[in-house]
């Protein structure tokens, strides 16, 4: 495999100082996935922008270009999942059928099962007796199965595990549609600060005995907790935290290791968006946040774009011509309708163009790939291949 000088994901994103204001340098996805030093690609972005589809398309393309790929999806559309053979959510990567393996690559896919991931961690790191105790605690059941935030922790946990397995040379990750879509970056930090917090130590104090925690504040705090949440729930909570104590350290360590892995040169972040105000604003926020966290940003993928210059007729010309044909022959009337469709499309494209140029004005050096709007939804491998071709087509 030939390796051009600029193959680092970081330099792909930040190589374009010469870029004109308002136009972004092109993102070369093929170069990114062909570089065998790229080991992890993370697709992030707000909800509904086609993150999962982008992740699947990139994974498929990389596999057919010869890499051994695993794609970790969080919540794929039913038919997209089916197209990759993901009929059950069993947390295990399964080979995807129908892949062209002539280049020596392979594709496995899995859907995240957050409770299963959590249970596995507990069982792997606690004695059978203690694991049982934790798995049955009502706090654990609630935490592992239904509460917001857990998905982010578990997605990172699973990524760390898959990476450690070493069976794949590229892992493509789709991120959870969280409140703030970068919650997964905060997970390790939150966990650490929490576990070092006085509260956890306070909760552990009765289990550990010594009265050294009985400081002035202690009485007030337990009294307040008792008053607000009641003695029974406090006891359940204490049991849970005490039982979990040994696990917490391991969790934190692995969360920190995963965070470091995300920062490493072998990782590439792709921010996914659609050319509309809110998603592009979110994309700008992601870009800034990734930079602040020193995460290797590879570029921006803008899905569902329309072409401003299509057919070489402006919206204004189409709009003024359309009524003049409306009362003519059958073909004139059809052409009139077609011009109305065209005007609508070009207006939309112009608006998208404005939104994209606004982003580029502030983040002009972020390499960008554009995927045109397709008239049908994607739900088979051929559809994914088409997306990938657009994604990697030179502009």
């Amino acid at each position, binding site marked *: 495999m030939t390796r051009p000088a600029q193959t680092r994901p970081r330099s792909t994103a930040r190589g374009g100082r010469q870029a004109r204001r308002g136009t972004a340098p092109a993102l070369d996805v093929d170069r990114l996935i062909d570089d065998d030093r790229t080991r992890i690609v993370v697709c992030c972005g*707000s*909800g*509904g922008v086609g993150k999962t589809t982008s992740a699947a398309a990139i994974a498929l393309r990389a596999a057919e270009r010869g890499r051994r790929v695993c794609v970790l999806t969080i919540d794929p*559309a*039913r*038919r997209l999942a089916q197209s990759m053979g993901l009929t059950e959510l069993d947390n295990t990567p399964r080979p995807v059928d129908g892949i062209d393996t002539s280049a020596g690559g392979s594709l496995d896919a899995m859907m995240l099962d957050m409770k299963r991931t959590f249970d596995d961690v507990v069982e792997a790191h606690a004695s059978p007796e203690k694991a049982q105790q934790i798995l049955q605690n*009502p*706090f654990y059941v*609630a935490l592992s199965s*239904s*509460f*917001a*935030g857990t998905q982010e922790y578990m997605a990172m946990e699973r990524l760390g595990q898959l990476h450690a397995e070493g069976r794949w040379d590229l892992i493509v990750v789709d991120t959870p549609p969280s*409140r*703030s879509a970068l919650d997964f970056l905060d997970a390790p930090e*939150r*966990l650490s*600060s*929490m576990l070092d*917090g*006085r*509260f*956890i130590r306070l909760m552990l104090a009765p289990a550990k005995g010594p009265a050294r925690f009985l400081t002035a504040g202690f009485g*007030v*705090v337990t*009294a*307040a*907790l008792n*008053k*607000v*949440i*009641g003695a*029974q*729930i406090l006891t359940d909570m204490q049991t849970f935290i005490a039982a979990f104590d040994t696990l917490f350290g391991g969790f934190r360590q692995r969360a920190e290791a995963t965070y470091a892995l995300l920062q490493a040169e072998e990782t590439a972040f792709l921010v996914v968006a*659609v050319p*509309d*105000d*809110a998603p592009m604003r979110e994309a700008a926020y992601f870009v800034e946040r990734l930079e602040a966290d020193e995460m290797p940003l590879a570029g921006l993928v803008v899905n569902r774009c329309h072409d401003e210059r299509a*057919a*070489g*007729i402006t919206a204004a010309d*189409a709009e003024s*011509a359309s009524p003049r*044909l409306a009362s003519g022959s*059958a*073909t*004139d*009337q*059809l*052409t009139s*309708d*077609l*011009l*109305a*469709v065209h005007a*609508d*499309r070009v*207006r939309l494209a112009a*608006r998208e163009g404005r939104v994209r140029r606004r982003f580029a004005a502030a983040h002009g050096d972020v390499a960008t790939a554009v995927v045109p709007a397709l*008239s049908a939804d994607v739900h088979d491998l051929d559809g994914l291949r088409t997306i990938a071709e657009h994604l990697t087509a030179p502009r």
Partner: protein
Amino acid sequence: MALSTPLHIVTGKGGTGKTTVAAALAIALSSDGGRVLLCEVEGRQQIAQLFDIPPLPYEERPIAGTGRGGGEVYALAVDAEAALLEYLAMYYRLGRAGKALDRFGVIDFATTIAPGVRDVLLTGKVYEAARRRTDGPESDFVYDAIVVDAPPTGRIARFLGVNDDVAGLAKVGPVKNQATSIMTMLRSEQTRVHLVTVLEEMPVQETIDGIEELSAASLPIGHIVVNMVRPSLLSEESAAALDAATVDVDEVAVSLARVSLPSAAAQDLLDEGTAHLERQRLQDEQDSLLAATGRDIVHLPRLADGIDLGALYDLADDLEEMTR
């Protein structure tokens, strides 16, 4: 106990325009001189961005320019930590202890790690605002209706049902009572959960799944709001001609030349027309799936020029039937 303030909970898959619909609904509800509270609970400052105003603090304040017919829309970004401290002060008069809890990291723990507490606090704040009385201590801030820009469809049943889980965890005590009261309010006649979608496969599927989940949790479903509907720009004759593929590209080229447009564009225009037709068919298919749910449905047009205050008023008019 008297009935609480009418509560409209607006959910929808990401990218479907949930915040826009919530804001337009708040405006619609305020049209007859009503005072309406528009809350967001995800800490993303989407209301401020929509109205192009500075980030909202944890404080109910009127949004300039929303007063129509003497009505007023107030906005509030509910913050879990502030809500917890306020809650402790309000219900338990825990001034000093509240601070001690904060110092010990309890507030932090409760709002970030402790299972479900964040959602409990967010729904709890809405509950507090909904049960205010004109003769109560917060009589200045009694609303005629509350609109919540809620978490997305995939999470909504869990978000609204969190108090059931908590009521299950806490078998007795004040938390149990509070959680039970919140669930009672959410399941009452006064509450409606609206689902925003666009006519694409995945959002529609999520909407149908969401309706099932909400029904299973006995949460009251209001309207399905179908957002960003693209009007058909092709007459029946044009659609039929494109369908039958009987159109002669050269004839279209002649028509184009007649109005001094480049005839070379004919094939591109036909392709665009066919793609448009295909999208309209997909839209119709998805729309009939929604119709099959038997729920009340309102349609909102796609606005080619984006959303500003004027556009919100137009959308508010289209949502009028949801205010009845």
